[in-house]
Each structure stands twice: as C-alpha cells, then as structure tokens.
C-alpha cells in the first residue's frame, strides 16, 4: 500500500446512464512511468480526468499515498496535469505562466525567479521569460506547459496525450526528453496515449483499455510478447489473428493444420483465438514449410520487408529481412513458442 502512490478502486464513470469507465482497478508505484493506452473513446482520458479531479467518479475510490482523495477538488491534490492543447494562459508571458502555481503558494519573488529559471533550463528554453505565449511553436508551448506543471514539484504528473499535436520527429525527441526528465526528477508519470509505439518506448508499466475496461496490465515486454487477448495483440503491433480449435493441452488446429504449441488449460476442443506476430513467421523453401503460399505484395519498411502471403485459407502478414519475389511460392514455418493461444471469452469486445 505504501509505495502505491496512486490507486483506483472500482472506478466507474457514466454520462447520462452510459458507462464510459466500467469499474477499473489499478495502481501505480512511486517513480513509475505508467501509460494508459487505448483507442479513442476507450475511457483513458476520463480516467485521467478523474485522477486530476476534473471529473468525479460515479462510483469507486481514488487513493493518493494511501489517503482517499475521491472527492477532493483539483486545487487540493498534489497532482499536476499537462494538457494535450497546452492550455497556457495567453495574457501572461512565459515567466508568469510558469510562476502561476508559485504565486498561489505565496512563494517569495526571489525564489520564484530562481525556480522559474531552473524550470526553463530543464525544458531547454532559458531566455524565454518575457516571450509571449503565441510567439512560441507548438513544441515550445508544450515544454512550457510541462515546466509550469513541474514547478509545483508534484509527486504525480498526469499527461494527456501531450505530444499528440506535434510532428513525428519532434514527438520522438520529446519522448526521450520526457522519459529522461521523469527519471531525473523521480516523479511518477501517468501518461495517456493512443500511440502504442509511444507507450512501448516510454513506459515502465502499461494499462491497456478498451470500451471502459482494462484489457491487460503489464510491462511493455509482457504486453508485447504475452498479450492476454486478441484485442491487445491486435492493438499492440500488427498480428495475424486466426480462429483455432484447442484439442488438448499443447495441441491446436488452425489454418487446416495441427500445430504443437506451449499453451494449455483449455477445455477439450475449445474454440480459441490464435495470434502470431508477423516477425515470428519464418520464410523457408516450399518443401521445408508447414504451410505454403504465394507472395502477393512486398513493401520495404526500412529495417524489414512487410509481405502479404496468400495461403490456402488465409492471408499471412510476415516481416522478414529477406525478400521474396512477388508471385513466387514460399514455405512458412511457425515454431511452438511463437503461437499465442487466447480464450475467446477473455474480455475481447
């Protein structure tokens, strides 16, 4: 309990009788980088807004360092937020924007000055004190927004798709900067995004949400390698998802063939989802493969080729550093380790 700095217990939020967050339970440890990941409308932003205090939960509780804060207004929580659209105060200059929180706490002018300077240095914008908000680029404004939130020295920083409005190159740079900042300052970050790559790059722990429910909680590696259901598998990276039948432990049929696998614990002949990552399908000579197919398209993706291979009953997407000619017939090999079996019932909405 002690090191769980923020905890949500059966958090529910409904608008006009429609539940957008359906009783979720989660916690984040001190100094962790937690990402809430999901498609738009999955309830991730609503969850973040409940943590910030902008929305009050329909039911459930929120704890901060072990104390309940469910009904505390935002200005009494030691949590600060970075908004997607920056939300800087346009009539104040950069200095006053960052100093806003300090002025409320009646910090002396000398201390304000040194703290603002320190924050500007942190976000690499020293010398911007007297600039106007709308003379700054989007990326610069977001840095100021981060500085403004961090100057209060919050224990938890909430970030609501803060990089959503920035271009790709800037986004990548900011991802690394944010991660470094989080490590350096030792602040807990709760980060909301719909960008799975961003989540995998930055997080210590990821919560995947869909339709108001948590699909999976785990480290980036866990979630990528061991997705709990077909939704997670599909959302995190690209996947081949097939219908299969689990005959007994470690034996599954899909694509009209029987395969050995490593999963068990299903009912006899239970219908399951079979998930295979594109990079886990090996391309071999026709006679060496378990399956075969005709190469339908080849796209160069930088590090690898993405190929669509038309098999007897299914088109396969595979990633390989080797290229096959379009129209040629190739064999496909799938090892037991790379076959992920998922129950059809497990939360796949």
């Amino acid at each position, binding site marked *: 309990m002690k090191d769980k700095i923020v905890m949500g217990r059966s958090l529910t939020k409904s608008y006009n009788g429609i539940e957008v967050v359906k009783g979720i339970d989660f916690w984040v440890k001190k100094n962790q980088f937690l990402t809430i990941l999901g498609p738009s409308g999955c309830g991730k932003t609503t969850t973040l807004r409940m943590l*910030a*205090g*902008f929305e009050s939960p329909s039911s459930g509780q929120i704890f901060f360092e072990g104390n309940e804060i469910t009904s505390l*207004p*935002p*200005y009494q929580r030691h*949590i*600060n*937020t970075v*908004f997607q*659209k920056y*939300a*800087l*105060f*346009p*009539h104040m200059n950069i200095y006053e924007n960052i100093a*806003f*929180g300090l002025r*409320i*706490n009646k910090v002396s002018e000398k201390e304000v000055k040194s703290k603002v300077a320190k924050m500007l240095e942190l976000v690499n914008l020293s010398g911007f004190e007297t600039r106007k908000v709308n003379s700054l680029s989007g990326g610069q404004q977001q840095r100021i927004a981060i500085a*403004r*939130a961090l100057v*209060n020295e919050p224990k938890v920083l909430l970030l609501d798709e803060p990089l959503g409005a920035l271009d790709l190159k800037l986004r990548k740079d900011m991802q690394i900067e944010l991660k470094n900042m989080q490590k350096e300052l030792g602040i807990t970050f709760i980060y909301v995004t719909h960008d799975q790559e961003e989540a995998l790059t930055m997080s210590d722990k990821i919560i995947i949400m869909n339709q108001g429910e948590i699909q999976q909680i785990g480290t980036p590696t866990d979630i990528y390698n061991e997705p709990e259901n077909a939704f997670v598998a599909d959302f995190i990276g690209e996947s081949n998802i097939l219908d299969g039948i689990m005959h007994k432990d470690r034996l599954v049929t899909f694509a009209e063939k029987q395969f050995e696998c490593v999963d068990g614990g299903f009912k006899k002949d239970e219908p399951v989802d079979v998930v295979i990552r594109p990079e886990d399908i090996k391309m071999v000579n026709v006679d060496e493969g378990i399956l075969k197919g005709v190469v339908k398209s080849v796209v160069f993706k930088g590090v690898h080729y993405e190929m669509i291979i038309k098999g007897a009953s299914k088109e396969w997407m595979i990633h390989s550093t080797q290229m096959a000619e379009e129209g040629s017939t190739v064999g496909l090999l799938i090892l037991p380790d790379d076959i992920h079996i998922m129950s059809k019932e497990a939360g796949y909405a």
Partner: protein
Amino acid sequence: MVRKWIKWFYTMLIFAFLYAPIVVLMVFSFNDSKNTAKWEGFTFRWYQTLSENGLIMKALYYTVLVAIVSALIATVMGTLAAFGIHYMKTWRQKLVLNINSIPILNPDIVTGISLMTLFVAFKMELGLVTMILAHVAFNVPYVVLSVLPKLKQMSGDTLEAAMDLGATPWYAFRKVILPEIKSGIITGGLIAFTLSIDDFVISYFNTGNGVTNLSIAIYSMAKRGIKPEINALATLMFIFVLVMLILINKRTKIEEI
C-alpha cells in the same frame, strides 16, 4: 471608369441622405438668430444659454447618472449571465440565447410600456429607480452578446489548468478568466452606456417625479417650438455618441488584430 464614378456618386448620395439633416442641425446651432430657417451669422450664444438652462443641466445630470449606474449593473449581470449560458448544454443554450435576443428585436415602445405596466403593478413609484431598472433591463442582452464570444474563444482547458495548479475557482476567475474576457466586458459596458444615453422611448414611459433625461427634455422643449438651443444640445449629444461609437469600434478592431 464610368462605373467607378457611378459607384462613388451612389455612395455619396446615401451619405448625403443620412447625414444632411444632422449637418443642417449642426450648422444652425451656430446661427445668430431666433429664427431657425434663416442664416444670420455665426455665434456660440446658444451653447452659452444652454449651459445656463437649469432644466437642461438637470436632465444632463440624470442622463449621465442613469447611464453610469445602469451600465455598471447591466455589465455585471450580463457578464454573469454570459457565464451561465456559456456552460449550458447545447439546446438549453440555444433557447436562452433566443430569449436573450428577443428584447433586442422587440420594439422599444413595447419594452417601455410593458416595463411601466410591471412597475405600476408592483406599485412602484415611477422615477429615478424605475428608469435605472428599465435601462438595466434593455442593456443586459447587449452585454451578454459582447461577452459570450470572448468566452467561446477561451480554451476550454484554461480554467481547469488554473485549478490544477492550485487556484481556487475564485482566484482562477480573477487571474485567468477575467483578463481573457476583459475586452468583451468593457465593450459591453460601453455599448450599454451609449444605448442608455441614447434612449428616449423606454425612458419616457418609465420615469416620473420630475426626473427627465436629455432626450425627454428635448422632446418637451420641441413641443413648444424648436429653439436654436435644442440644436446646440442635439449637436453635443451627436458628437458624444459618435465619439463613443468610434471608441467601441476601435476596441473591437484592436481585438481582431
């Protein structure tokens, strides 16, 4: 070339039609004659008698008093109303906005008589108070309409961002919201002030006890024949309203930039 000339001529014709009466009035306010139709030399005499006319000076005092007090009250009420309307749900917001604009479209005479009926029904003595109340009533919708767009322009996150940084709602309102919508409030206040100075019909039905504003004073003087003094007074009022209008326009222009 000819087309351009016709355009120019047409524009001038309209301006002449609109402003010729005022120009005539202004010119004759400097006419050194009791006769209003014949030019007999230049004088400031009428402006002087005007300033010595106790009735008119009293009317001026009431006009300014009513304008200031009613504009202040209307500005506060209208701003608060604009807040309420801004945070309403769509269909309710539409409904209230329509209700808000009815008094603007309503003929002054209807507004004036209905207010009078209301005051009489409540057994209020017609006088300064009822006149101020009447002016507040017709000014509030204009303030609402000038503050609302400023609220719409404001980013929805601004208030939340302030509260997130530790500001109580009142502190956030003073330090963040108010500076953002200040220009809309001032413009609304100026419009209310100008309209109040300008009003005749509504004031006429809602005053009594010897309280008159300038337009009522002019009206009652005109009944006994137009004196050059009235020309002088009308000229001053026109110039005042013109200055106010220029001020308001300048403000809106600066905001657009």
